[in-house]
């Protein structure tokens, strides 16, 4: 622990300090209003410090990384924090506004810390900093039986997933004989030569780690909690659940599987590839039957976890190849940003539409195009982007993911690996076509059906602002995807890494 490390962690410290202030002040002042301003202020302060730090980023010692992946994740988390705070700006009728915003900021701080963790213990604690406030959020959301079920289900399964993840970390510690990721990577590289039989324990560790993180990603076979939990909670919580844990799990998966476990990639990409195939197919096919909006979006978020895993598989398979051919990294993080914008936007529009009671069923959106043309247009934009219709940003994201998989396929002469990735890309494209059916069904209900009732009560302006911000960013990235592609291509551990590249000298 040095003053340099404290300075480096200042954005996270500011976010956590804001969260603590909101919690404690919320216990003294019995108002439900105004906490959103405080949360926005803290997020903005953290962003300002982060902007000041960039360019002359310090090289902290011990427990922290300060590479491109860290910088990208921190910016992504802070931007998501802004959108999610806007979404939670208006306190719910049940109260608990300070606790909601404080917990939200803590999950954001956890996401930021996952990327810079250079130690297994710190990574686990950072992931728990996301999980534990999420339990509180799920409990605070609503007060009915469905919500109780959602909170309990998420709590028990999340604890189980954490236990599985921790069990994997214990095997990794056993093989690497250290909790430091750099030391583990060095030990694994050496182990390849000295005792290859021992490496199988590293594979076991990898399977358990992938299983633990697959819960947070909502990837098959750890997806089954998602529909019930999303259905039972609020639109705002569902938006958080479908973005924050996914981003953190992706970063942790790439950091552990790609960076800290050299020599495992040939096993890892197969595992991730099969999970990806199952996840996107199951998510998309099951979503076709859903009539409940959040349940539908839960299956949609499962399907998108599958697409993201395609990029992870490509990145893993490309670990020892030239970066020009296999660019899974850029595709993953570009897709993650675009998916996050469209998903938060969708939930924000529904949150806005709901007044005293929230919009739940697909039928409630009937004729929305006539009643509320602006909201309907925004929602249609987000759904088209999730479908991947050109020229929206969702299309660029899918294009990059599938192009990366096709590149990894390597055409006719790709061999067995190439065949796998070609099959993956083809099934991915087929899945995108299936997904169009249920996204466009919502659009059809909005524009081609007669309104069932009177216009709903006006929702809150925070949610509308969040939706408009998502739409503006989405349109900007559709017209000019270049800046986001460049930013995503910087989100790699070997960009801006100051020291200790010894174990990775041959990789890109």
């Amino acid at each position, binding site marked *: *622990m*040095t*003053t340099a490390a*404290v300075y480096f962690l200042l954005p996270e410290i500011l976010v956590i300090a804001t969260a*603590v202030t909101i*919690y*404690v002040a919320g*216990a*003294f002042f019995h108002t439900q209003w105004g906490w959103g301003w405080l949360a926005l202020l803290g997020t903005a302060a953290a962003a300002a410090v982060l902007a000041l730090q960039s360019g002359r980023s310090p090289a902290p*010692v*011990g427990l922290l990384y300060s590479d491109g992946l860290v910088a990208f994740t921190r910016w992504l988390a802070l931007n998501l924090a802004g959108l999610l705070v806007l979404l939670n700006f208006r306190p719910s009728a049940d109260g608990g506004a300070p606790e909601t915003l404080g917990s939200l900021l803590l999950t954001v701080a956890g996401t930021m810390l996952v990327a810079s963790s250079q130690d297994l213990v710190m990574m686990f604690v950072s992931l728990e900093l996301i999980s534990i406030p999420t339990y509180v959020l799920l409990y605070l959301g609503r007060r009915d039986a469905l919500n109780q079920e959602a909170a309990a289900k998420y709590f028990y399964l999340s604890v189980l997933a954490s236990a599985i993840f921790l069990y994997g970390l214990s095997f990794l510690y056993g093989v690497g004989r250290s909790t430091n990721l750099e030391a583990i990577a060095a030990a694994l590289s050496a182990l390849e030569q000295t005792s290859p*039989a*021992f*490496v*199988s*324990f590293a*594979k*076991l560790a990898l399977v358990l780690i992938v299983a633990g993180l697959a819960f947070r990603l909502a990837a098959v076979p750890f997806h089954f909690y998602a529909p019930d939990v999303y259905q039972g909670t609020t639109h705002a919580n569902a938006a958080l659940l479908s973005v924050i844990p996914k981003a953190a799990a992706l970063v942790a998966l790439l950091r552990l599987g790609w960076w800290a476990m050299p020599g495992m990639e040939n096993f890892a990409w197969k595992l991730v590839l099969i999970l990806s195939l199952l996840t996107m197919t199951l998510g998309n096919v099951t979503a076709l039957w859903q009539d409940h909006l959040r349940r539908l979006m839960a299956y949609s978020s499962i399907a998108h976890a599958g697409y993201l895993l395609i990029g992870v598989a490509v990145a893993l398979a490309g670990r020892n190849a030239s970066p020009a051919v296999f660019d899974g990294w850029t595709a993953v993080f570009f897709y993650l940003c675009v998916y996050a914008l469209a998903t938060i936007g969708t939930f924000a529009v529904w949150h806005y539409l709901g007044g005293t009671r929230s919009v739940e069923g697909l039928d409630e959106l009937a004729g929305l195009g006539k009643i509320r043309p602006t909201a309907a247009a925004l929602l249609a934009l987000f759904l088209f982007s999730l479908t991947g219709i050109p020229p929206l940003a969702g299309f660029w994201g899918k294009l990059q993911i599938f192009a990366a998989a096709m590149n990894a396929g390597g055409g006719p002469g790709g061999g067995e690996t190439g065949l796998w990735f070609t099959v993956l890309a083809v099934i991915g494209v087929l899945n995108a076509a299936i997904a169009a059916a249920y996204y466009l069904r919502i659009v059809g209900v909005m524009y081609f059906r007669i309104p069932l009732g009177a216009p709903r009560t006006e929702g809150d302006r925070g949610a509308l602002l969040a939706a408009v911000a998502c739409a503006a960013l989405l349109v900007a990235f559709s017209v000019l995807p270049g800046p986001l592609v460049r930013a995503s291509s910087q989100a790699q551990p070997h960009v801006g890494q100051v020291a200790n590249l010894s174990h990775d000298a041959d990789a890109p």
Partner: protein
Amino acid sequence: MTDPALSDAVPIFLFVACAIALAVVLLVIAQLFNPARPGRVKRMPYESGMDPFHDARRRFDVRFYLLAIAFLVFDVELLFLYPWAVASHPAAVPRAATVAPTDITPPQTAPAVGIDAAVASGLVENRTLVFAGAMLFILLLVLGFVYDWRKGVFQWR
């Protein structure tokens, strides 16, 4: 064992087999060789040395739950503060005191231990930072305590 994927997995199967075998063997040995002399005291459920005064399968007041959580936080606090207190103790002090004033041998520099060793090895910058970290930890717990108090956790309603 010609399949490389299979031979890779042999250590894992060995590990699982050993884990199961150890559990079974220990139970069987205990069953075979233990002297079976049950008594009233031995059949008593173990409650950390306290005599149980009623059946454990009984309903508890849910209000105990909040108190238990609050207690747990401060229980864990001690777990962190004891090692910190021991590590921050400069071990050179008692040794220097034992040196008689007439002793002509130069006072040996004691090897740094605890936080001093961490500072010497460059793991932490200085002692002040460690102290600040511990104080911050306590401050966070106090803030949690204040939150509990304001929310009425300590009122038996």
